């Protein structure tokens, strides 16, 4: 090879001692900012005005990224066609490079299967290629390019796959010398109710409820949390709480979205019908809802899912923020399950057959985050209680599961980490 890869550990944020967190401003705030910069440039290539006033802005050091997502109707107005019907959702991105280095905006980070602008026009024209039709040129000329020169502002559209309701996506900007700016955006598009908007993060716990713990304290605290989710009454035990996550809210979303997880909603009637429809047809509905499970007396704070090939093959994950801080970071407790099929119930019409080998699903998550380059370290604690293969327990919907009784503790990184850099900690327990 033409280069020696520098000692990767030199740049890896260490968990012990403390991790320094990257400043990220406003990822969860909706700011209607004046976008005077691009109005100067008119409509020439690389300076495309936002589609609406629902813009969101994030500044990391010397890079400011602004995004907006046009609704189906706005898309129709801008591009003269209902791109949503072709599964295409334009995302407007503006990268303001205040640094002295040239940077790349990488659309794969937003959607690994984004559509090319020409393909977008081609689909719009029912698969007729007319390169210089005004409609096609409008799409091509307003597309976002990768390169953002030092001191420049670039804006344009990335043509992503449709997300209903809230469009949540990452924006990755990379430059030379490993400089990088990793951001997460949540842009509301009317229609879907997302759990985390219902969570009042700031007031989830009062200051005196929250305990800051050291490493031993973290192990003790995690081991003494409940084994399992419950129903609303708190009486019946459900799925095992076999994952714990250490990281800021923004790091949690960034990491899981990088790994291909989508936010989801809790069951209500419309989506139930959609779910039933896709259960019957096998078509993918990325946002089929999940039922509420309870920990700390409340339903999940975060619900995510990852579709595999179709609705019969998806993974569900729920997280609750615990009243615990480790090195200043929130600690989460959660549950993950892997659907391996559909079966029918009275209460919710359809429910998923979950993989009873919940430890296998837990280990899948470890690897999923590892290959998303988001995992700084991991370790295991007890707390779930073992249930041998021959003596499985049941969850709330009667699915059996067996487990070694461990929960994995996942320390997220806000810097890319390759698999050779992941630290495996001895937290007192380990799987066989």
């Amino acid at each position, binding site marked *: 090879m033409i280069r020696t890869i520098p000692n990767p550990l030199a740049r890896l944020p260490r968990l012990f001692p403390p991790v320094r967190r990257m400043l990220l401003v406003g990822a969860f705030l909706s700011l209607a900012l004046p976008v005077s910069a691009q109005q100067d440039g008119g409509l020439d290539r690389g300076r495309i005005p936002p589609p609406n006033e629902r813009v969101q802005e994030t500044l990391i050091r010397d890079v400011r990224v602004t995004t907006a997502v046009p609704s189906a109707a706005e898309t129709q107005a801008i591009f003269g066609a209902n791109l949503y019907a072709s599964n295409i959702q334009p995302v407007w991105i503006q990268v303001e490079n205040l640094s002295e280095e040239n940077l790349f905006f990488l659309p794969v980070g937003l959607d690994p299967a984004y559509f090319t602008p020409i393909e977008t026009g081609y689909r719009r024209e029912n698969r007729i290629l007319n390169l210089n039709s005004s409609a096609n040129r409008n799409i091509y000329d307003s597309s976002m390019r990768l390169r953002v020169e030092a001191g420049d502002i670039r804006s344009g559209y990335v043509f992503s796959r449709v997300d209903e309701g809230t469009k949540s996506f990452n924006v990755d900007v990379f430059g030379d010398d490993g400089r990088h700016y990793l951001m997460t955006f949540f842009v509301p598009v009317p229609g879907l109710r997302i759990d985390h908007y219902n969570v009042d993060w700031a007031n989830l716990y009062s200051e005196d409820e929250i305990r800051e713990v050291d490493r031993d304290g973290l192990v003790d605290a995690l081991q003494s949390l409940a084994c399992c989710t419950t129903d609303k009454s708190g009486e019946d035990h459900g799925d095992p709480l076999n994952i714990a996550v250490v990281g800021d809210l923004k790091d949690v979303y960034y990491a899981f979205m990088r790994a291909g997880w989508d936010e989801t909603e809790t069951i209500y009637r419309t989506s139930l019908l959609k779910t039933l429809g896709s259960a019957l047809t096998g078509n993918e509905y990325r946002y089929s809802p999940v039922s509420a499970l309870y920990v700390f007396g409340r339903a999940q704070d975060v619900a995510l899912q990852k579709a595999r090939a179709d609705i019969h093959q998806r993974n569900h994950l729920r997280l609750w923020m615990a009243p615990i801080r480790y090195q200043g970071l929130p600690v989460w407790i959660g549950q993950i399950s892997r659907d391996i099929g559909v079966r029918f119930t009275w209460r919710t019409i359809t429910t998923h057959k979950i993989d009873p080998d919940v430890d296998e699903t837990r280990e899948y998550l470890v690897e999923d985050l590892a290959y998303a380059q988001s995992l700084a370290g991991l370790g295991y604690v007890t707390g779930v209680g073992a249930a041998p293969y021959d003596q499985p327990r*049941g969850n709330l919907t*009667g699915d059996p599961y067996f487990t070694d009784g461990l929960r994995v503790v996942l320390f997220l990184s806000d810097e890319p980490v390759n698999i050779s850099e992941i630290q495996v900690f001895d937290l007192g327990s380990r799987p066989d």
Partner: protein
Amino acid sequence: MTATPSPHVSGLDYRASASARRSGSLVFIVALSILSGCASRAFVATPVDQAGFLERAVVQTQQTVRVAAAVPDAKETLALTGLDLYQQGIQPVWLEVTNLGEQPVRTAVRSVDENYFSPMEVAWKYRKRLSEKGRADMERWFFENQLPRRVPAGETRSGFVFTHLAQGTKGFNFDVYSSESSHNFTFFVPIPGFFADYMDVDFQSMYEDGDIVRVDTAGLREALKAVPCCSLNASGDSLGDPLNVVIVGTALAVRRSLLRAQWQETALNAPETTVARTHRFLGRPPDGTFLKSRPDGSERKELRLWLAPLLVNDSRVLIGQVSYEMAGASGVKAYENHRMDPDVDNARDFLMQNFWYSQSLGALASVGGVPRSSISAPLRNFAGAEYFTDGQRVVLFVSENPVAMDQTDILPWRAVLTD
């Protein structure tokens, strides 16, 4: 029919909660009566250690980790489990990991196939075909024969990973890791009846030693200036698509990168590569053509590669072209209707990101060499397909070892990928 929880519900015995009994058990019974049908087969598995396919095991050792890999074909899989896993699109990969070191190591099952089937998921697919006891036996077999995630120091563990069926050579990566270190393996296990296009190429004797130009990185930049803009047609008198990709790396690094980034090899003379084979460079059709399909459609990226008579230190240089093939009007032979996205730079930029995100990119650079053209005045290849480009070729230095995204070097050869 009764609402009492039944041991027939699953091959696994279980104790459902009270609410589940209330709400679920009747449904189970209904479902059971639908699902169970007249299934009465027993599950009969052949002991794995007696399976013939293990004789084909390929062994690789890296420092303190030894891995053996073998892939049973359809018949051998049927003989092993009595189940037609191949027909369900499932291909078992058998792996044995020996940990010769002093620390426990972890196996990354997901490195073999990022959408692998879990053992119990495979068992679930066959639940209707077996008797109650057969189902329980089957579930236990899949559970007990999965590849363990952990291998203690000094010990050996083996088992199956259930992957998606690959047409052709079973090429896969396999990572074994421990705290702050990893061992990265790549296996190619031939499957009888498949012959990839690149297997028909004799890379060893393709060039005489005297023909090969040895350069350093700076020399590569100069050498690439001599590369023509485009491929040619068979008669050599008309220009084809631009040569917009240069991949530099050891043979292993190139193969690993393509696997990590989920490119699929193609069979020799496959109908899907009919168009690719009309493009000639160095007097021959591509040495290898690779495809990467959209997850939600029949569109695909197409990467055609030729081995160049260049060595950069010990790394090979592959020159090629990448394009995005849009799906045409629907038809039986959809591949015949694909047409190239004229914005070829978009496919090139995708390839760069594809390698970058899959931890394969040691460094990247860009050089000119293709005539600039614009959407308003596109060029045409010999088949009449339009394209336009900024004239840049991306140079991807691929790494055998995983590279975190912020460790990729961007070489200041010139403004990379201007638009």
